[in-house]
């Protein structure tokens, strides 16, 4: 897949040599937008209230949280790792933020977000340290911390629930407020995705993530500090999940021990549907965010066309499996074409 990315960069200036490979590569984000359009149009024909401002607002808000989480997960997956613990990190930092308000109702919003960020970063540090220092595969580490962090959350929260009445209005407004019909959450997600997309394209450290994911051994030989970059990826993912916890709390207004259960699977599905290669080394934040939007749109479309929302998890799973299978088939089809082209260039 990386060869695709490199090929594209090398060949891009020569506009005349456009081939199917590049079309398919650029096709991904376009394809998602197209799929999105089809789902929206088809659902709206079935039930015109699907595009009512209230329903669009809800859709954007819930997609925004998944899109935020997808930023961190994308970075980790690009380094050829995986972070299964983000749902639990979101849960525990949302609960921490709620408890802070419960005990200190007049605490500043900045402090709440800093607390959520700090807890998320701490979880990320643990994940990253065990992966890079103790050299345990990220799957094992984060499967473990998925349950450990959730367990700590459960032990801490017990049966306690923080309600919207305990949260100040200014905080809740982040969750439901709008600017010209666009919810704050949507704006936050768009800004975050824009910054992250730019960073992943331009920053040297971010390009290191791609290099590590394409070939860790080659990256090491090229002098990239693989360990500290992978560590950084996990800390970023944890921090973003922590921040998303505070955002989650402002949207849902109440939090108990099961906040964010199962989010990791939705997020991984969104990331993979968005064209991030599960083998690492390729993919964009923008694609992952669009994947999150598509997944959420399909889920709300199902409800509108009277399919029970109980099927939504099956849809996520099917899309995940379908996306990796599709990517693989495209890669297999394109491999001969790419080989031919490389030979021609040499």
């Amino acid at each position, binding site marked *: 897949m990386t060869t695709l990315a490199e090929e594209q960069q090398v060949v891009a200036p020569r506009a005349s040599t456009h081939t199917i490979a590049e079309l398919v590569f650029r096709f991904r984000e376009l394809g998602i937008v197209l799929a999105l359009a089809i789902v929206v149009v088809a659902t709206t024909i079935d039930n015109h209230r699907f595009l009512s401002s209230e329903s669009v607002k809800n859709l954007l808000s819930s997609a925004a949280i998944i899109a935020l989480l997808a930023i961190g997960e994308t970075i980790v997956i690009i380094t050829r790792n995986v972070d299964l613990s983000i749902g639990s990190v979101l849960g525990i930092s949302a609960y921490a933020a709620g408890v802070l308000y419960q005990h200190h109702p007049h605490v500043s919003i900045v402090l709440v977000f800093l607390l959520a960020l700090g807890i998320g970063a701490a979880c990320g540090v643990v994940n990253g340290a065990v992966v890079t220092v103790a050299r345990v595969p990220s799957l094992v580490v984060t499967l473990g911390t998925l349950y450990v962090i959730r367990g700590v959350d459960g*032990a801490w929260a017990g049966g306690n629930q923080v309600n919207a009445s305990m949260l100040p209005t200014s905080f809740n407004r982040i969750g439901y407020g709008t600017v010209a019909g666009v919810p704050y959450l949507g704006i936050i997600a768009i800004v975050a995705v824009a910054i992250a997309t730019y960073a992943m394209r331009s920053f040297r450290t971010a390009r290191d993530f791609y290099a590590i994911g394409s070939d860790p051994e080659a990256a090491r030989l090229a002098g990239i500090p693989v360990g500290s970059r992978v560590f950084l990826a996990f800390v970023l993912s944890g921090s973003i999940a922590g921040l998303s916890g505070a955002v989650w709390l402002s949207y849902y207004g109440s939090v108990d*021990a099961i906040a964010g259960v199962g989010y990791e699977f939705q997020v991984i599905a969104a990331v993979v549907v968005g064209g991030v290669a599960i*083998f690492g080394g390729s993919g964009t934040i923008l694609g992952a965010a669009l994947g999150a939007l598509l997944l959420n749109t399909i889920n709300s479309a199902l409800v509108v066309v009277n399919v029970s929302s109980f099927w939504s998890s099956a849809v996520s*799973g099917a899309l995940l499996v379908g996306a990796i299978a599709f990517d693989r088939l495209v890669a297999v089809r394109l491999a001969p074409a790419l080989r031919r082209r490389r030979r021609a260039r040499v």
Partner: protein
Amino acid sequence: MSDLAFQPHDESPATLASRRAALRGVLRWEVLLLVLLGGTIAFGADVSPYFLQSTNLFYICLNVGEIAIMALPLTLIVVTGEIDLSIASMLGLSGVLMAELFDHGWPIWPAMIAAVALGGVLGAFNGFLVTRLGLPSLAVTIGTLTLYRGIAQGILPTDTIGGFPAHLSSIGVVPIPGTHLPYSIAFFGALAIVFAVVLHATPLGRAIFAIGASQEAAFFAGIRVKRIKFWLFVLSGLLSGFAGVLWSLRFASARYDSAIGMELFVVTTVLLGGISIFGGRGTIAGVVVAVAVLGCLQTALTADRIPAQDQNIVVGTLLVASVIVPNGAELYRRARARMRSVVARRHAAAAAHAEGQ
């Protein structure tokens, strides 16, 4: 500089080497596990006077029965260097199918067979994606974990189906007559013997280890890598389906969220049993002891009134620790080797310096 240069001079290299070999023999992972098992039993006996009674043995076995059965095929899959995270979802979906068919008037036996067969089909789907499309098993089984559980939820969203014939659902809660063992653990025992023989004493078992050690080399040695992996995934599905039947009988009902999150326990059992997550190493005996450790630990923690959610903290930590500890020995060796080469270089430099003067 030789390996032994920094050892005291009064020991000959030969006795040292043999002592080291002996030490390595004692420090086998299985021995460590037995010590851990002893510690867990002592802990259990300490928190509850009933821990060592035979009825408790029954409950320990009953609690880990399904986990133990699913751990066996997963062991083989991990030895080949793959992973199957969808096992608990296959258990759930098979249980739901059995209950649905029974609810629609099927006799119980065909419904049970259909559930096991469904497990096989689900496993075959995993195996197809992994071997024929060449997708990473981690991504595939994360996807099917969500997909299979989602289908179960779609079919049976909120209800619980029960009412299985009493003579069958009792096998989930009564011991085998004349013993203190539940049926599930008896199945596990029989399967464990078969798995141990196959893995450690047949060409197929050696092929499985060879795949885990080096897939390329195994392929060029004429081993049907893809075929073996495919059937291992099918086997994993079949036994998860079987575990689903046992689970539904044990609780006399089926729900979509049966055994949700249980992949944690099964993966922990396998890795705690000394199966290397990188493939190619491990024994069935280790997994059997790990099942005992996990069963005793779970019951001891429950006896100590630690809620299930908190037990997940312990099990999750155990999972990570069971990979860190063997890695730790490796890291220590590597660090020591690096220290030694630094010292050696310094010595050489000093010698060169002295020569130069």
